[in-house]
Structure formats: structure tokens, C-alpha cells
């Protein structure tokens, strides 16, 4: 009987199933898929070019060299890209509420967040993740990193944490749409706006932004604190150096907060008249 199996894996299984279905549907138009993926990659190259130009003119930013800047930008592109691919579609929540398709999702025995995230699942977003990881690899070679076993083990943990924090921000942004119609644009200012914040060494934005991004919306833990950890740098903004070790914890707390927001939103969902 179905209910007797481990329930934790059911959402994951449903996610893979639904995402796989969309991938197969899109694979019927391979040329279109390749073009879209390349177009997505162009966005990353534009961002990286901007980083190269800024560092080319400034030389060093807050003590960060070009290679170190690339590491930050690569971490940002990868974490944001993964979150965007896994959960980016939740930003369509408002449309699903208006058209009533959320009601349909709610009467299927699969968590609605899974259905929302996989609806029109877009494998083209790999076009952001692949160049992102290449840039990380290049930057790691160019940077002078003391590769202790701890750092080797922490690298994937930091990437997963960054992805988790970005995903949590996406979900919290989407939850606003339960209460305010047209909140998508407002949510985008923190999702896409937040991404811009993670692309450069955070200290360049000044103390107040650093504090806000550390203690309010924890975007500092997507690239800034991980970079400080990997490069073994003291924090130039004067926050305790121990903060960087809190990255996985911050990721877990962010996800729990996002899950609580989602449940709260769903309980207060009003549906539309029909």
C-alpha cells in the first residue's frame, strides 16, 4: 500500500516525475531548447563581463582581486541558477491563483509547492548553472586557496546552502502573492535584486547593506561569507569572523522560515470566485 512507504521521498519522486514530463515535452523541439539555453547563458556572460570590467578598472575591491571577484560572481550565478531552476517557477503563483489552476493543484495528492515549481519546468536554466560552475572552477584555480580537507568538503555544502537560501527567498517572495495581487514585481526586486547583491564582494555596498543582508534577508550567506571562508579572509566590515561557519545553519533556518510562510499562505488562501 502506498501510504506505508517512506513519505519523505514522495515529494521528491513527484518532482522528478513532473519535471521529467516537461523536459520530455520540451525535448520534442530540440532546436528551440538549445537556443533558449544559449540565450540564458548569454545573460551569465554579460554579468561576468561586467565583473571583469569593474575589476579591470578598479584593480581590487575591498581587498578582493579579479580572480576572487570571479569566485564570488561564479558562486552567485550557480546558486541563483540552481534555485531558479528548482523553484523559480513559484513566482507564477499569482497567475495560478487568478486562473484557478492553484485549486486544481490543491486537489491532487502531491504538495502544491512541488507542482508549482515544476509547472513549465525549464531545463534551459542549465544555461546559467553550467557556465556558473565553470567560472567557479576557473576562479578556484586562479585564487590562492589553502586546500585543507575541511575546505574541500565545505565547497559543496556552501553551494547547496547558497542554493537553499536563494530558494527560500523565492518562496517567501511568492507567498506575498497569496495576500497581495501583483506582488510579483515587488517579489522580483528581492529575488533578482538580491542576486545583483550577491554578484560582488558584499563589502562594496557599505555597512548598512551588509548588516541588512546578514541579519534580515540572509543573502550575505550565498556568496560573501562562503568566499570569506574559502579565501580565509578576515571580515572587512567588522562582523565576527565566526559568522561564516553559520552558513549551513542559516540555510536550514531560511528554509524552515520559507516553509512556515508557505503553510501560512496556503491556510489563508482565499481562492477566486467561480
Amino acid at each position, binding site marked *: *500500500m*502506498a*501510504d506505508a512507504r517512506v513519505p519523505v521521498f514522495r515529494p521528491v519522486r*513527484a518532482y522528478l*516525475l*513532473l519535471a521529467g*514530463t516537461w523536459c520530455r*515535452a520540451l525535448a520534442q523541439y530540440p532546436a528551440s531548447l538549445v537556443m533558449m539555453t544559449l540565450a540564458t547563458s548569454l545573460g551569465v556572460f554579460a554579468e561576468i563581463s561586467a565583473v571583469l570590467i569593474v575589476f579591470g578598472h578598479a584593480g581590487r575591491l575591498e581587498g578582493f582581486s579579479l580572480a576572487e571577484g570571479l569566485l564570488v560572481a561564479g558562486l552567485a550565478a550557480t546558486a541563483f541558477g540552481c534555485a531558479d531552476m528548482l523553484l523559480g517557477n513559484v513566482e507564477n503563483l499569482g497567475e495560478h491563483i487568478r*486562473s*484557478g*489552476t492553484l*485549486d*486544481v493543484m*490543491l*486537489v*491532487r*495528492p*502531491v*504538495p502544491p509547492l512541488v507542482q508549482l515549481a515544476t509547472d513549465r519546468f525549464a531545463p534551459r536554466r542549465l544555461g546559467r548553472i553550467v557556465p556558473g560552475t565553470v567560472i567557479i572552477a576557473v576562479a578556484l584555480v586562479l585564487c590562492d586557496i589553502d586546500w585543507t580537507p575541511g575546505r574541500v568538503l565545505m565547497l559543496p555544502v556552501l553551494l547547496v546552502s547558497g542554493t537553499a537560501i536563494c530558494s527560500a527567498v523565492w518562496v517567501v517572495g511568492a507567498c506575498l502573492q497569496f495576500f497581495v495581487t501583483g506582488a510579483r514585481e515587488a517579489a522580483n526586486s528581492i529575488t533578482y535584486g538580491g542576486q545583483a547583491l550577491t554578484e560582488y564582494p558584499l563589502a562594496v555596498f557599505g555597512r548598512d547593506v551588509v548588516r541588512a543582508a546578514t541579519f534580515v534577508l540572509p543573502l550575505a550567506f550565498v556568496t560573501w561569507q562562503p568566499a570569506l571562508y574559502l579565501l580565509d579572509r578576515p571580515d572587512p566590515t567588522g562582523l565576527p569572523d565566526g559568522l561564516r561557519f553559520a552558513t549551513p545553519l542559516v540555510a536550514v533556518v531560511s528554509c524552515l522560515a520559507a516553509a512556515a510562510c508557505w503553510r501560512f499562505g496556503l*491556510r*489563508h*488562501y*482565499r*481562492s477566486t*470566485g*467561480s
Partner: protein
Amino acid sequence: MTSVRESAGSAPPSGAGEGPVIEAVGLGRDFVLSEGPFLRRRRRVVSAVSDVTLTVRPGEIVGYLGPNGAGKSSTMKMLTGILTPTRGHLRVAGLEPSRQRTRLAGRIGVVFGQRTTLWWDLPLRDSLALTRHLYRVPAADHARRLAELTELLELGPFLATPVRQLSLGQRMRGDLTAALLHGPRLLVLDEPTIGLDVVSKSTIREFLLRLNGEEGTTILLTTHDLGDVERLCERVVVIDRGRKAYDGGLDGLRASVPAPRVLVVDLASPVGPVRVEGARCVRVEGPRQWLELSDNPAAVIARVADRHEVADLTLREPDIEGVVAALYRGEAAGNRTP
């Protein structure tokens, strides 16, 4: 599929050995509306559904009727777990819908007439296969049920067609199949025949009757189509302004509203409105006149025939449409809840 067929958990055992499929006591849902300009915004609480008490036993077909905005959809959404009730006790298929929504989804089938539960871009067959995985129906059960439903609902010719290319009638049959593949004990239909032609409507009605008769599936449907009600429902619940206005048989519904019978008289030649005791002329069209009866029809016919030359006459029973309209207007003889 034992989970689908297991009996209602905490419901008290009834004579039939199985508890009610739906049990609602004092169910209510409020909406808070904010109106007026910013800063002077006022909050107003509107009750979409108030104090609805309803028990549906296994095997019943219940029509849930009411004018637009009466609270039909809100009730349906509470029953399926989409909306959280503001107050009251509610159990559906032995579960509490808003808290156990995902589990409940495996025990009930839901069809929205206005929107599809299928995947727009997938062929119907793939959409149904995906449903099988999401509901975790064993492959053999799925194949058997799909074959049955394909035959009953004549899905064969369009199983390979993408859902977006299906006609409304085909789509509705596809939606019904998707809702029934996991063998739910309760089928909730929100306006299942809306926009369908006469033949499609009739296919769906006959199918639902057969499903109810052969498998004992409990059916709860909302509809504005009184043909659905007359063909399908032994029991109707009428909701008006969020409150239950009537709950009982279709005949009782007719009796509860003073809807007079109408005598249609074709006279030999056009004359002014006929005036006889026990009847009131409500409409004149050339030689044809409509008389609303307040007396025994035989007596009225005799009186009319005395004064005029009658070519033809018909006696019309109040139709259910008129009865429900009268009920919506609040002309019921009193709320009857057997």
C-alpha cells in the same frame, strides 16, 4: 488501493456499517474585505457560508444548488480542502480536509467544469498516465480502469490528442476519467455539464448514474442545469446567501414552494384576457392564453369552456427551474430539513 476503500476513520458506525462520506456541522467561512482608500480603509467581514450542517451517506447523489454567489463554490472548496473553514466541524471520507488535504486527494475525485485538471500540452493518454503516477495507482489497476472508462466514455478516438485540442465535451470526459482512475469513493463535481451540448450532457449524466449504481460512488455536484438535477439527484440541497435553504428530495422541493400550475388555453379566436374564478390570466399571445390556477383544474376548464370556444388546452406542472427560482427569491413555505 486499500487506502481508497477504507471506511471513514472516526465517524460513528451507522446502520449500514459505514459512516457518512461527508459530515459537516455548523460549517462557515468568512472573508475579510478591505475597502475604501488607503489609510481610511475599512475591514468588512462577509460570510460566504454560514452554519451549514450536512450529512451525505455512501452511495447518495446529492445536488448542491444555489444562485451565483450563494456559497456553493466556497462549500465545495472547503470539502476538498482548498479553503480552510472559519468555523464548524467537517469530515470528508474520514479526514479533516484542510489539515489532511493531500491524503484526502487520494480518496476523492474532483472535477471543475470551468477548468481542466489535465495537462494542457500533453496528449490525453500521457496526462492520464501522469495522474496514475501522482496517485500511485498500480499499473494493472490503472490499465483495467482506463480500459473500462475508455469504453464507457468513448475516449478511444482522442486518447492521443493533446488536451488543448480537445472539444469541451471530450475534455470533460477526459477530466472525469482522470478523477476516477484512482477509484475514489466520493466524486465532487463543480458544474460538470457547463457549456456542453445536449448529447455530451446526456452521455455524462448516464455515465454518472451507472457509476453510482454499479460502484456505489457517492456523488456531490453543483450545477445550474436543472436537467442534471432532475436526471441525477434523489436529494437536493439548496443554499442561499450562505445558508441552507432546503435539504431533501426533489418532490419535497416542489411541494415546499407555492408554484402554481398553469393552464394553457388555445381559444378559437383572439379575445381579451379570460376572467374566470380560480384562475388568473398571466399572459396573452393572440388566441393563446396562460392561466395561473388557484383552484381545481377541472373546475376552471369547465368555466372557461362555458364562456369561450376552446380549441385546445394543456396543463403545465411547475418545472423545477421555476421552483428553484422561487426558492432563491425567498418564497419557500419554510425551511424543511428532514
